[in-house]
Structures are given as structure tokens and as C-alpha cells.
């Protein structure tokens, strides 16, 4: 079963519509539940880093996610959801889930010379062969809306794709075994975005 984690701080309507459109069955997870029974989890998110951590804790999901055995469960973090999978963020004081060994930084501090937030459709300009995202994202456009992001410079053991914005490259997708993440919003990126959701839910 696919589970969408509803933090209550963000609008998950378009994600739910997307899965319905793809005829994918899903459950919405609002509080502590046996996450291990789900084959796939989606962690969407809009808002600030600390509000995301707080919402996960309030729903009693923070520790369950941290301790979950991802050998049997795949997870896709979207936008703030991706950032919550990381260790921490310059946006807040709280610790993230730490499933990805990355620090989230303000785009300005990453050296961005362009307008912040980074908003709009942008093209994934580089993608490592990660066995999943490459064919789905390389040289394709997706909808971004964020002021913080992971930097290419910090990448160690994960496969990633990136998007060029002014002088910097921002991580657009990450894949580490069963952990998947997109900085952009697939549910706001037309057919190409739907394709990613479909592939994730059926992989």
C-alpha cells in the first residue's frame, strides 16, 4: 500500500489528485501508524523546516520514520519533504530525520546570484545514472518553489541530479537505495511530474 504523510501544514490535495489520476490506491497517514506495512511512503511538504519537524513530532511520526527499516519500504520526499529527510537546515534549529547525510542551506549561502526564492519551471541539467530518475528528469522541466536547498558540494554517497540557477547548481533529485527525493513538485509539473509519481508508486 502507498501512504501519503499528511503533516496538516501543507496542501496535499494536488498530490492526492495526482495519485487518483494515476489510478494508484493510497492511504493518507495523519498520525502514528505501522509504517512498516506500507510499501511506499510519500512525504510532501510546504512551509518552514522547523514547522515540518514539529508537525512530524506532533503526529508521532518523527521517531517512527527515523527508525523505519527502509529495506522493505520506499520513501519519496517532495520539496520540504526532501529537506526533512536531510540532517538539518539553515532555515531552522531542529534536526531533520537524517536519512540523507546532507545539510540544507540557504540558496544565498550556496552562492546564488539570482532572485530568491527560486520559483518556476527549470530544467534538470545534470543527472547521474541512478537507475530511476535519469530517464525521468534529465533535460526536462519541473516546478520549483524554494529558498533553501541541498548543495552539490556536499554530495557524498548518493546519486543526484541538479538544476542550474544563476551561478549555482541546486540538487533537484536524490536517490539512495530506497530513499527518493525531489526538490521540485512533481504534482505541479504536468505529465512529466505524474510520470515520476507513477514510476515511484510502481517501483
Amino acid at each position, binding site marked *: 500500500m502507498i501512504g501519503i504523510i499528511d503533516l496538516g501544514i501543507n*496542501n496535499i*490535495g*494536488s498530490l492526492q*489528485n*495526482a495519485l*487518483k*489520476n494515476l489510478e494508484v490506491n493510497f492511504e493518507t497517514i495523519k498520525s502514528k501508524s505501522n509504517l512498516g506495512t506500507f510499501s511506499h511512503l510519500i512525504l510532501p511538504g510546504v512551509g518552514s523546516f522547523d514547522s515540518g519537524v514539529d508537525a512530524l513530532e506532533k503526529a508521532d511520526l518523527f521517531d517512527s520514520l527515523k527508525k523505519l527499516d527502509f529495506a522493505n519500504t520506499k520513501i519519496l520526499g517532495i520539496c520540504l519533504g526532501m529537506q526533512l529527510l536531510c540532517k538539518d537546515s539553515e532555515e531552522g534549529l531542529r534536526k531533520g530525520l537524517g536519512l540523507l547525510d546532507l545539510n540544507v542551506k540557504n540558496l544565498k549561502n550556496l552562492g546564488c546570484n*539570482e*532572485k530568491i*526564492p*527560486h*520559483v*518556476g*519551471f*527549470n*530544467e534538470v541539467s545534470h543527472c547521474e545514472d541512478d537507475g530511476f530518475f535519469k530517464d525521468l528528469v534529465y*533535460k*526536462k*522541466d519541473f*516546478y520549483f*518553489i524554494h*529558498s533553501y536547498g541541498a548543495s552539490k558540494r556536499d554530495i557524498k554517497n548518493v546519486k543526484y541530479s541538479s538544476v*542550474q*540557477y544563476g551561478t549555482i547548481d541546486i540538487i533537484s533529485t536524490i536517490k539512495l537505495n530506497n530513499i527518493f527525493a525531489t526538490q521540485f513538485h512533481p*504534482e*505541479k*509539473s*504536468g*505529465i*512529466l*511530474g*505524474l510520470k515520476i509519481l507513477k514510476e515511484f508508486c510502481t517501483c
Partner: protein
Amino acid sequence: MLKKRLIFILFYKEGVFCLSRNFRLQEVGDVRWLIDKFNFSQIGNFIDELVILDVSRNKYQNNNEIFTLAVKQIMTNIFVPLSLGGGVINHDKVQNYFDSGADKIVLNSVISKNTNFISSCIEKYGAQAVVGSIDFKREQGEVLTYCDNGENRYLKFDEHLKLFQKLGVGEIMINDIDRDGTGIGFDPMILNSLPELSMPLIICGGAGKPEHFVEALKYREVSAVGTGNLFNFIGNGFEKSRIYISNILDNVRNLES
């Protein structure tokens, strides 16, 4: 490279979607008509964003349920960013629009009444979620702006732009009342006199065919073009426009191939 955008704008009034011509509304069809005539699951590939504006008499109600229900029906099959506007004068309304699926809210007339409200929206939801909208027309050689559906004269065009810039909205959308719904194209005089802004600029009012979009998008100052013309782009009009634009410009979203 951030891509330039094509935006579809819908005007909703008391249950009916309307064609706006010089800000006078002609009722066209209800949400069923709209969904029937514009294949939303398809046009999501050809437009980059959707703006839906409530211009009903009761738009100031905190929750115009018939409107938000129509919005949800439209958004069932289209997966692009959504902006909602109309009657946004307090935070309850803003929250209602975000709860209804909006990624951004459009603020227009409130600027003439309560600029603090605009600042507070930016503070609470971030600049990226706030679009400042300006309606303008020409009068005795000057370009002047109007609030309240084009009824009350407000500022000179450049002053209004400056005020939104100072407030720090995430984007500015300008609507040409004289060309609204005419389909004769964007005004070259306006295009040639656009200032360099610190945020993206969306230009609306006049587009009637694909060539018009390209003419405006060629300007460095223009980040996006919008049209609310319900007749000129009906059926596969957006697909045709998109193909035309993509053949000429490379800084627009790639078509799915």
C-alpha cells in the same frame, strides 16, 4: 535556466466563467462547460500556470464555497501551479484560498486600502506566494492604474509598480484594461517602456493568437504572458500556442516528447 511562462486566467462570477472585455464581463459557461471545452488534463502540458479570479459580488465573503468547489473541480485533472484571487482583504480569505489548493494568492484592490495587509501576507506565507496585480489604462497621454475592477482611479502606472516592489511581492501581474479581451495583441508602447523589476512580471490584456505571446515573451522584462480569452484558445488553442512559442523561443518549458 528558469523558463518563461504561459498562464491561463479564468474569471468567475456567480457560478459562471466569463469573458472579460475592457473589464466588462460576458457570461460564458459554468464549470461543466469550462471542463468540457478545455481539456484540463491535456492543457496542463501547454500552459504553465492557472490563475482563477473570483469577481462575484459576494467575493468578500470569507468562504465562497461555490467558487472554491469550482476550483477544486477544475484542479482534479490539471497539475500545474495555481493562483487564486478576488476579494482578498483579510487573512481568513487568504487561508481559505490556500486551503482550496492555491500556491499563490493574487492581491489587487487591497493595495489602495491596506498596504500593511500585503506586508503581512508576505511575512506569513513568503513572497513567492504573493502576486501583486495592477489594472491600468491610458488617459490623456498618461498610463494610470485602477482598483476595484477598474472602477476607482488609483496611481500612475510607474508609481503603482514601485509600491508593489517596495512591499516586496513575489511577482507582479499587469492587466491592460483597454486591450483586455480584444485579442489585438499586447501594447508595444507598454512593452517598450517596462522597467527592470526585481521580481518576475506577468503581462496580460490583449493576447488573441500565439504570435502575441511570442512578441511579449521576447522582452527581457517579461517573465510570463497571461490570457483570459475563453474563445480564442478554446479546444486545442493552447496546444497550438505552445508549439508555436516553443518553435521560436528556447527559454520556455520543454514540451513533453
